[in-house]
């Protein structure tokens, strides 16, 4: 499967990387250069990605000819370094999943970069911003084309770094700084699992390459080995590793309970929210699961559905409903979208968990388009309303910002899953289809339906608050339409959100077969199979109900800012809980942080008083003994010596008095001596 495109694939991430490197050493005033480099490299990458995509498409089309189910898979492995007798190899991979993601990331990324030129035009760190965007794009694209879990992890962390830098871009705002820290650390908690899983995988499979001509970890021999190996708890090695990797995915993709960072990440500039925290980076977790899907789905023993995928499905389903509930009660336009993102990521995980790989990826890509569209639309609104973000202080913007209104409406309908002409409808349809067919339980199906209802409801609520009713503040009254550099990308994204619906209808599931292999035929009759019809009907009903209730509560009459939310009036305690995001942050603050802080204090105490104390104690003991030595030294030895010396001196002084120069006293002494001698002799 040698293909010339493989030798150029490295350009995709390297172009933005080079751009980032150049911008990093540029001085602040090079704004035009920075923007040009970033957008230019993104567009160049887009064209390389498109070429790769077409290659995959071309080969994949013919693949149908020689045996169904085959998909194009080309890789290029190279040695990074050697240690001992081993070589650590990294690689690039091109398969349909990569190709689709590459095109999506480069396309959405280019548009968002163009949008940023307008949005960030007043910022004095404009250059830096584009440098970070380039860095992010490079890392994200590297993540997508990696043929090695290690390379993927490295890019994964770099993506996290870019996210940290961009959330904290307005570093003078304490809230942004806290949010950036929170994002980095929360995702790193998940990454610990990822790291451990990777290390484990590496020692089990002996390689971290995904595909390596039969020796890769996603290929049969390694999978069989891992599925049959058992760990302590009786679980298969593959299951445990999958769950560890899923920790990382959950952190990055904001799955419960690691979702807390994503809404706070909206402290960053809006294009960042659109690109990173809606369209691409947060989807990296979904992408990771999709990438190592063979590992997740390998079935062990009597089970029919792998335990790992069950965990993925339940986590996804819970997150989808949980986040949608919270979104209902939020008032910040970006926060609503953020919780909506969490919820939609839950959908993707759910779909992966129930076996719909292609469905999840399609939802990922469709979501990237319409959520980027919504965020940029929200950015346009915020830009127009002079940095006002509270939807209750907006209103009636449809007259003042018509273009934004139209594209935002398209995004809203795509997200809510309005029937037939929006990609969101078909992607949600596929998710429901797969969920319905899940052999383990039907509960996730109903949860997905409930989530769809809530999605339609909160988006309708938002639309009415922002674009309808009366103007609720002078910011809203002074709103103006954004410049073309901002609206044109919006229009392109809106077109994407609509047109994507063409490639994944049940009648022509082209995308499905592109990802998973197989031949696509146009078959309109699929629509009329009873099961499909019933599902579609249920979906339309649910969306209709959501929109209807939304209109009933928020659209019939204008709701001034001072008036309490109708839901609040109806069920105050419930609304309070939702508005406070189920108190998850507070719960963490009361448990995790307190425990960590306590542990740190204890460790510091130990360090200072126990370990240090032992040393001080040893010093004390030494001192104690040194007191004796001191007494001996000073009082016995020194003083004895001193007094001896003194006695000598004194006696010298005394004796010197004898020699007083008086002859008579000398003679007297001599006489006395004689007498003494005589006495002695006499005595003897």
């Amino acid at each position, binding site marked *: 499967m040698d293909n010339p495109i493989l030798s150029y694939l490295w350009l995709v991430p390297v172009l933005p990387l080079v751009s980032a490197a150049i911008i990093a050493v540029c001085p602040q005033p090079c704004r035009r250069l920075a923007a040009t480099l970033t957008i230019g490299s993104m567009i160049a990458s887009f064209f390389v990605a498109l070429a790769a995509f077409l290659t995959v498409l071309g080969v994949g089309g013919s693949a149908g000819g020689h045996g169904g189910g085959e998909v194009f898979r080309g890789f290029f492995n190279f040695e990074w370094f050697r240690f001992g007798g081993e070589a650590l190899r990294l690689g690039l991979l091109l398969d349909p999943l990569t190709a689709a993601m590459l095109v999506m990331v480069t396309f959405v990324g280019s548009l968002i970069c163009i949008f940023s030129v307008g949005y960030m035009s007043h910022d004095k760190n404009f250059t830096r911003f584009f440098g970070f965007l380039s860095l992010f794009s490079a890392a994200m694209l590297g993540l997508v084309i990696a043929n090695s879990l290690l390379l993927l992890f490295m890019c994964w962390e770099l993506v996290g770094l870019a996210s940290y830098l961009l959330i904290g871009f307005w570093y003078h705002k304490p809230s942004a700084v806290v949010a950036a820290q929170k994002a980095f650390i929360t995702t790193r908690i998940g990454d610990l699992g990822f790291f451990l899983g990777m290390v484990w995988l590496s020692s089990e499979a002996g390689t971290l390459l995904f595909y390596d001509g039969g020796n890769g970890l996603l290929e049969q021999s390694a999978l069989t080995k891992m599925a049959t190996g058992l760990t302590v708890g009786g679980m298969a090695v593959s299951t445990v590793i999958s769950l560890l990797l899923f920790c990382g995915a959950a952190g990055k993709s904001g799955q419960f309970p690691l979702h807390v960072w994503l809404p706070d990440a909206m402290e960053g500039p809006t294009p960042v929210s659109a690109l990173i925290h809606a369209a691409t980076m947060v989807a990296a977790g979904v992408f990771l699961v999709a990438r190592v899907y063979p590992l997740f789905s390998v079935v062990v023993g009597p089970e029919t559905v792998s335990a790992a995928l069950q965990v993925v499905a339940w986590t996804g389903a819970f997150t989808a409903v949980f986040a949608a509930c919270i979104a209902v009660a939020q008032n910040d336009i970006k926060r609503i979208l953020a919780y909506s993102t969490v919820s939609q990521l839950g959908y993707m995980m759910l779909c992966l968990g129930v076996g719909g790989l292609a469905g999840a990826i399609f939802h990922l890509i469709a979501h990237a388009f319409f959520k980027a569209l919504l965020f940029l639309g929200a950015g346009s609104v915020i830009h127009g309303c002079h940095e006002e973000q509270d939807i209750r202080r907006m209103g009636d913007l449809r007259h003042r910002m018509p273009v934004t209104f139209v594209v935002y409406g398209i995004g809203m309908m795509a997200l809510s899953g309005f029937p037939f002409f929006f990609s969101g409808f078909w992607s949600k349809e596929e998710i429901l289809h797969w969920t319905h067919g899940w052999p383990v339980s039907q509960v996730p199906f109903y949860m997905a339906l409930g989530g769809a209802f809530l999605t339609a409801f909160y988006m309708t609520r938002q639309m009415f608050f922002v674009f309808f009713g009366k103007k609720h503040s002078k910011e809203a009254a002074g709103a103006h339409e954004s410049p073309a550099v901002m609206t044109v990308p919006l229009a392109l994204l809106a077109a994407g959100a609509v047109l994507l619906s063409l490639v994944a209808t049940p009648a022509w599931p082209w995308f499905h077969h592109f990802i998973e292999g197989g031949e696509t035929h146009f078959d309109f009759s699929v629509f009329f199979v009873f099961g499909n019809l019933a599902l579609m009907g249920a979906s339309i009903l649910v969306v209709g109900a959501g929109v209807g209730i939304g209109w009933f509560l928020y659209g019939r009459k204008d709701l001034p800012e001072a008036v309490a939310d109708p839901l609040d009036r109806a069920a105050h305690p419930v609304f309070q809980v939702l508005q406070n995001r189920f108190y998850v942050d507070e719960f963490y603050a009361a448990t995790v942080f307190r425990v960590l802080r306590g542990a740190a204090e204890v460790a510091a105490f130990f360090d200072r008083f126990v370990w240090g104390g032992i040393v001080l104690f040893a010093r004390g003991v030494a001192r104690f003994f040194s007191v004796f030595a001191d007494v001996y030294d000073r009082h016995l030895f020194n003083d004895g010596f001193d007094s001896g010396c003194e006695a000598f001196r004194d006696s010298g002084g005394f004796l010197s008095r004898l020699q007083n*120069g*008086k*002859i*008579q006293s000398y*003679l007297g002494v001599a*006489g006395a001596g004689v007498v003494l001698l005589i006495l002695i002799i006499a005595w003897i």
Partner: protein
Amino acid sequence: MNFANLSFDFGVGITLHTYLVLSAALFCIGLVAVLARRNAILVLVGIELMLSAANINFIAFWRFGAHPEEMVGVLFALFSIAVAAGEAAVGLALIILVYRHYKTINPSQFRSLNG
């Protein structure tokens, strides 16, 4: 002349002890004079007295010694007297010089010998 046959008999037996006691007394008187007098000339006189005591001893030990026929004791005594005369002359000369220098002949005033 045989001095050995000379005998002075005073009824009481005059023995060596008698002379020795005399000489000791004389010596002590001289010594006291040397130690106690404040006049250098009298100190010198004291010294002469002590020398005389020594001479008496010489004579006494010779006279009552083992060989009274040899004239050793007399010779020593004469020699000693001659030396004492010289010594007295030197001593007096010294005293005069000291007197010229210090304007006193009190020996306790001479401190230049102290250490």
